């Protein structure tokens, strides 16, 4: 039904790695990654021949139609899913070792707060598991709640918060233990435009301040372009990368940058990539 997209032949841009020596700042490297789910209705080819390199401090966005494997790829990076073939390394380790080393914070597609814990208690969860001291926990909870604009909600239970506030709390939970990598699966998908803009801005500030490496799944072209240094366009059946766009926008981005010609040009290229993936380009 879907014809082979033309862009598929374009191998993802491999910026010549200046750091081919052992001191590579490469954080994520996927080569020839394949993943097939065995289901009752037969095999589902979720990822096919995925090649990608993410450097330290990159902000990578994954964009593509529903079911193209964005979540699956993120889960592979997190060591929650095991690729059928190919190689994947995170911080120079296998994803599973990186998971054991608590290398990343993961924000799931739904907030997934534990209903029996308060907002503060939910943020404390990873800190308890990782064995932080009481004082340090309190301090960190205050700090990340502040970061996502939820001061004063520490003692509230999840059901007392709106969906958007719950999602922010889940971001705070992922930030609490200061992992170098942040994996975010459509964290702002459920939010209205204004809150989304605000959080996008805050996320950029956080990223600039902390030099984290962020992998970010979204369905929104403007969001992807506004946030990213690298945009990965994916297409479905089988899920694969159809384009990788290195953003030429400066790292310091006011919201108004979205009206610039450069921004629109990048957005157009993303849109073209998406259409190509759909077999309509």
């Amino acid at each position, binding site marked *: 039904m879907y014809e082979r997209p033309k862009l598929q032949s374009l191998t993802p841009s491999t910026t010549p790695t200046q750091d081919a020596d052992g001191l590579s700042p490469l954080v994520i490297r996927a080569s020839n990654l394949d993943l097939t789910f065995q289901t009752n209705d037969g095999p589902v080819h979720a990822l096919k021949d995925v090649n990608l390199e993410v450097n330290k401090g990159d902000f990578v966005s994954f964009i593509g139609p529903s079911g193209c494997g964005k979540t699956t790829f993120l889960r592979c990076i997190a*060591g*929650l899913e095991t690729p059928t073939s190919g190689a994947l390394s995170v911080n120079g380790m296998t994803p599973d070792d990186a998971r054991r080393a*608590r290398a990343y914070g993961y924000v799931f597609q739904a907030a*997934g707060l*534990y*209903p*029996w*814990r308060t907002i503060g208690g939910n943020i404390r*969860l990873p800190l308890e*598991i990782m064995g932080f001291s009481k004082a340090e926990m309190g301090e960190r909870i205050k700090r990340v709640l502040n970061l996502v604009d939820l001061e004063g909600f520490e003692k509230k239970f999840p059901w007392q918060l709106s969906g958007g506030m719950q999602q922010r709390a889940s971001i705070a939970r992922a930030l609490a233990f200061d992992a170098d990598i942040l994996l975010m699966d459509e964290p702002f998908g459920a939010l209205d435009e204004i809150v989304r803009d605000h959080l996008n801005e805050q996320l950029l500030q956080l990223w600039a301040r902390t030099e984290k490496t962020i992998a970010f799944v979204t369905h929104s072209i403007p969001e992807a372009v506004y946030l990213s240094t690298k945009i990965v366009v994916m297409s479905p059946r089988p899920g694969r990368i159809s384009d990788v766009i290195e953003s030429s926008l400066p790292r310091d981005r006011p919201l108004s940058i979205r009206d610039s010609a450069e921004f629109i040009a990048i957005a157009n290229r993303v849109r073209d990539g998406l259409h190509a993936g759909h077999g309509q380009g």
Partner: protein
Amino acid sequence: MKSFFPVVTVVAAVLLIWIIAVVPMNMHLTADQAQRDGLAVSPDTPIARQDFSGLGLAVHNSHLIPLTYVNVRPRLPSPHQIAIELYDTVIDKKITSKRSLVYHGWVTLAPTLLGFAIGTLLGIMLAVGIVFSRVMDRSVMPWAIVSQTIPILALAPMIIVVMGAAGIQGILPKAVIAAYLSFFPVVVGMVKGLRSPEGMQLDLLRTYHSSNSQGFWKLRLPASTPYLFASLKIGISASLIGTIVAELPTGAKAGFGARMLVGDQYGQPILSWAALFAAAITAAALVGIIGMIERGTLRQMGMKPA
């Protein structure tokens, strides 16, 4: 409070049916007694009266209907007779009296609570084993199910006799039977509850590289709390029934079960019925207490009952 009116309506309907049923049920007895007391009864021989149904007899002797409610040894006691007997044996009698239902109630309640505690503990431990060990999942669950298919009425005397032969008497054999009935709902509910966390809640813990025991204490156990309480409510009433059943066939001298049996054997149905009602009220109270603890606990946990 929303359930108040439906409950009252049902209770009222049951009472009405009961009150109406008292007349035909006791009519023959009442007619015999009335005749002995020199009242006019038609037809005037017990044998002739056998040809009539209770209802038919009542139609012919409507003047005897009020007397069906005050029989000393009725086939079906009227509600007020039971209420009076309950008042008499619960409130009027000294607790130390052998006729006090409070005394008998405690004799039944103590093994019920002990058995419930044992059953709950056992149930939770088995459930934890089943959830964390494949081997236990395969081996324990079928036996737990089979254990509940054995009629407790047949099993109870065996347990009492065997334990008695081993020199164990008193509260413990009854508690064992109570535990036998209450562990099962706890196992089933807890297994379901401990398995209730969904993929994402578990994945979250994996991203933190948490240990199995952290997963248990921080996710599975709290997630299972609503299920546990649902099971405890079934378990406590099962415990009470188990204890009463244990008292029935073994010639126990005290307890609700003993009272029911004594009433039966000595032709004092009001006694049996009063004991039955006292047991039912006790069960309702126990379930109510657990319900209150449930509401308090879940509110503290920010959750709603399952």
